[in-house]
């Protein structure tokens, strides 16, 4: 059995700066995207239970295959990594990411694909669904738990929707994006970092992948204007009475937040 985890070598919005004209400078620092270690951890737990191989897959700019980048991801518990690093992917759209991931995954014969809740930079939560569409399998977002029973289903997942918890049984392949509740993240120690150096890493370039058979996007989005968002003035209200909680709730309801 094989489990794949897709992760992103991403910039952190906290390190980004925005010019007066609205252009974003993401800076040079990159890390494994904030929510992806949860997906890797969920994959590690499932892989240990089922003696599966856990494969980390990422697609990104050239630094995604740097020793620091692959060690950082591998130390989270991956058995091996596949990295497509190409500076053509610096500002890739979600469907471009998804198509490159699909080109890799179509040849891997994995049983389950895991993803984090969202990428730290754009946070659009779109790639798992787009990838699912390209692979012709279902995707499920905001999943709180993934387990592997012994009998009727390959995987059982739980998620919260509209005030209800739903348990789904899955027979066959699927893509599952997990929430941060899905697994606690262990601290990474020196032993993990040393072991990570020995994990096999396959580095590929875009021209080595086969995109034939994947749908090509044919919509066009042309940038007309970019500007900084207008920040709403702060309310400057402090609730400090004995009924502060009730007052806060009332105020949030009045603003339409709750």
């Amino acid at each position, binding site marked *: 059995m094989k489990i794949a985890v897709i992760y992103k070598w991403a910039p952190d*919005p906290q390190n*980004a700066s*925005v010019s007066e004209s*609205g252009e*974003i400078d993401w800076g040079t620092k990159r890390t494994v995207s904030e929510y992806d270690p949860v997906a890797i951890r969920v994959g590690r737990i499932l892989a240990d239970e089922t003696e599966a191989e856990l494969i980390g897959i990422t697609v990104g700019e050239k630094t995604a295959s740097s020793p620091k980048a692959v060690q950082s991801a591998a130390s989270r518990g991956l058995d091996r990594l596949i990295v497509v690093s190409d500076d053509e992917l610096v500002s890739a*759209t*979600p*469907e471009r990411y*998804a198509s490159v991931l699909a080109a890799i995954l179509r040849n891997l014969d994995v049983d389950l694909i895991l993803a984090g809740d969202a990428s730290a*930079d*754009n*946070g*659009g*939560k*779109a790639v*798992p*669904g*787009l*990838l*699912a*569409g*390209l692979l*012709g*399998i*279902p*995707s*499920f*977002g*905001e999943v709180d738990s993934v387990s592997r029973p012994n009998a009727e*289903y390959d995987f*059982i997942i739980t*998620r919260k*929707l*509209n*005030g*209800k*918890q*739903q*348990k*789904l*049984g*899955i*027979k*066959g*392949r*699927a893509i599952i994006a997990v929430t941060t509740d899905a697994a606690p993240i262990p601290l990474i120690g020196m032993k993990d970092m040393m072991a990570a150096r020995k994990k096999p890493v396959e580095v590929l370039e875009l021209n080595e992948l086969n995109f034939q058979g994947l*749908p090509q*996007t*044919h*919509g*066009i*989005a*042309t*940038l*007309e*204007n*970019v*500007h*900084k*968002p207008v920040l709403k003035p702060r309310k400057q209200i402090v609730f400090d009475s004995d009924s502060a909680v009730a007052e806060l709730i009332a105020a949030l309801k009045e603003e339409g937040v709750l």
Partner: protein
Amino acid sequence: MSTWIIAANQTQIGELVAAAGSEASILLIADDVALNELKDATVASIVHLPASGPAENFAGVAAAFFAEVTAQTIIAADNAIDRSLATSVAARLGATWISGAISWDGDSRTVNRSIAGLTIETLKVDGPVGFVLPTSSPALGGTPEIKKISPAEILDSIENNFWNSDTVVEVLSESEV
């Protein structure tokens, strides 16, 4: 231009209608209760795909439907189910996906989107595109044309039946939290 809302998560469908515009139509993947709640939504029409079980099972069928009606804009509410459906459908159709959309103007076919809350881009779109929108107040009071269709009817009507997945997904339980 053909603008469609794809909707399965009943709680947010009505709210999305206002953002999509009165010329839009809804592909509703849900039960009759949801249809009843939407029967006076301010949209041009509602196509009802009666569904039981997880809506994600119907992504292939929805894509086949949108291919047949040559949908140019596919909009979903920003929740896990509708987003999964819409992205999966967009990929099958080769529609361009626009992340972070915050508003849509159907007349000028422009989308405003936020990049990580840092900046706002205005995009003019052409050809098939998809995005999720934040929801607002329900927009009811219309008289949409309502049509019921079956998955088999959709799949039979197209030559290429690659849309469906072999994966089987079933709801095992639901409980209040």
